[in-house]
């Protein structure tokens, strides 16, 4: 068997091992890469900057731990930015495993140490499944729909929630998603109450959000991990986004090399067979 044939039949684990190395290098060798800010992230940031101090931002964690690598940096950057700007936060989810993701995010940025619960932020947890009447009912009357927060405190007893009754009282919905729940908030809240909405979606789903940015229904889009890295840069926060982007750069370069190498070997083997 020729060397070309041998390389073509190379065990896939070698290709995967190189991918692991490509992803791991930036974790051990600190480096930076220049990052241009996409227009969709920039638009969102400009809107955030226009929010007055004390505005209410709802962070919706509609994802599971599977999407944390792409979405958690955006969520953490948003919480940190809100702390810095004095924005008030409502955290909630329409995904059953979302509450644990919220807890992780709050711990990542030490929210309990830096903000006062009930006055600066509130965690409503799981409000019910998306794709049902949950989101429209929540938007219409928050206090009618939810009586207690995730920790069992009565909503009426939380000072911050006293003046937040409907979706109209929310200054921005920052929606983190892997797909599910996005249209609920867009169609039943943004479209009806006019509440501005900013989407942070995994890269495979960002294409779903992009058309709504161009129609003005979204104020910004964070496109996957890249969007998160850009958001961190703009908001002056530092998390996994920028580091993760370097790993992704190396991994993508290896994927392209593997694709080119595979094709070169394929054509070399083909021409050899023709000659024979």
């Amino acid at each position, binding site marked *: 068997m020729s060397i070309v044939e041998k390389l073509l039949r190379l065990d896939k684990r070698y290709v995967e091992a190189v991918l692991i190395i490509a992803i791991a290098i930036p974790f051990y060798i600190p480096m930076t890469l220049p990052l241009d800010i996409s227009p969709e992230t920039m638009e969102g940031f400009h809107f955030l900057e226009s929010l007055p101090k004390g505005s209410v931002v709802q962070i919706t964690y509609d994802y*599971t731990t599977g999407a944390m690598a792409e979405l958690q940096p955006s969520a953490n950057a948003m919480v940190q930015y809100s702390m810095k700007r004095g924005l008030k936060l409502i955290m909630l989810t329409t995904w059953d495993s979302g509450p644990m993701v919220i807890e992780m995010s709050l711990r990542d940025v030490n929210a309990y140490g830096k903000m006062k619960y009930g006055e600066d932020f509130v965690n409503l947890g799981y409000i019910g499944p998306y794709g049902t009447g949950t989101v429209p009912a929540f938007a219409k009357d928050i206090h009618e729909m939810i009586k207690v927060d*995730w920790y069992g405190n009565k909503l009426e007893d939380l000072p911050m929630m006293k003046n937040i009754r409907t979706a109209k009282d929310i200054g921005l919905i920052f929606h983190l998603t892997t797909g599910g729940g996005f249209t609920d908030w867009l169609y039943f809240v943004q479209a009806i109450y006019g509440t501005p909405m900013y989407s942070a979606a995994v890269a495979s789903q960002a294409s779903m959000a992009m058309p709504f940015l161009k129609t003005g229904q979204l104020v910004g889009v964070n496109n996957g991990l890249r969007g998160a890295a850009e958001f961190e840069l703009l908001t002056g926060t530092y998390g996994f986004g920028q580091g993760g982007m370097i790993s992704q750069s190396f991994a993508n*370069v290896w994927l392209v090399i593997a694709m080119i190498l595979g094709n070169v070997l394929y054509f070399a083997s083909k021409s050899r067979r023709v000659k024979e």
Partner: protein
Amino acid sequence: MSRVVKIQIPVVILGFTGALMATNFFLNVKIIGDISAQLQIWSAIVAAISLGLATFNLSRQHFSRIFKGNIYSISLIGSLILFPLLYIITGSTYSSQYSWIYNNFVGTMYPAMYGLVGFAMASACYRSFRVRNIDSFLVCFLAVILFLGKVPIGAALTPAANWLMDVLNTGGYRGVTLGVGIGLLAYCLRLLLGIERAWLSELKER
């Protein structure tokens, strides 16, 4: 069961609630708004009950599988028992024990599962993405532009990658969205008018 109970009453309920919700969307009438808000809360409660029902059904299925010797079903039944049990013992879903199990089991399994896709993709790039004809050339060519254009290292290709996403991808997605929207509208009208009856149990039984 009579035809009235199995077909006509459900169709009337659906038509009435559908018309009420549609009216609430277009008109600002207080009484209709209040009723529709209540109905939306009901729907959230029904959805929560259906989750419970689905859990019960799933448990029943997997219990029978365990008795047939399928040991993998034990993990599902075990988790279904473990989490409610922890809730009962600790009294909350945010206790340290509950969080520890979630973070160290569920929290790591999901990323591991999605992470494996990356390895499958690397393997596919080397062994399967072959330029055999013009179609496969286009797939590989566009993949290279997007792979490099969407990361800082390939900044020179970013405008091309953005053009692909903003023009071709967004245009395609808009077409799909409009098509789905119009189809959904037609389907909802058929439901409200009682023309679409495939969801009725009697018709399914036939």
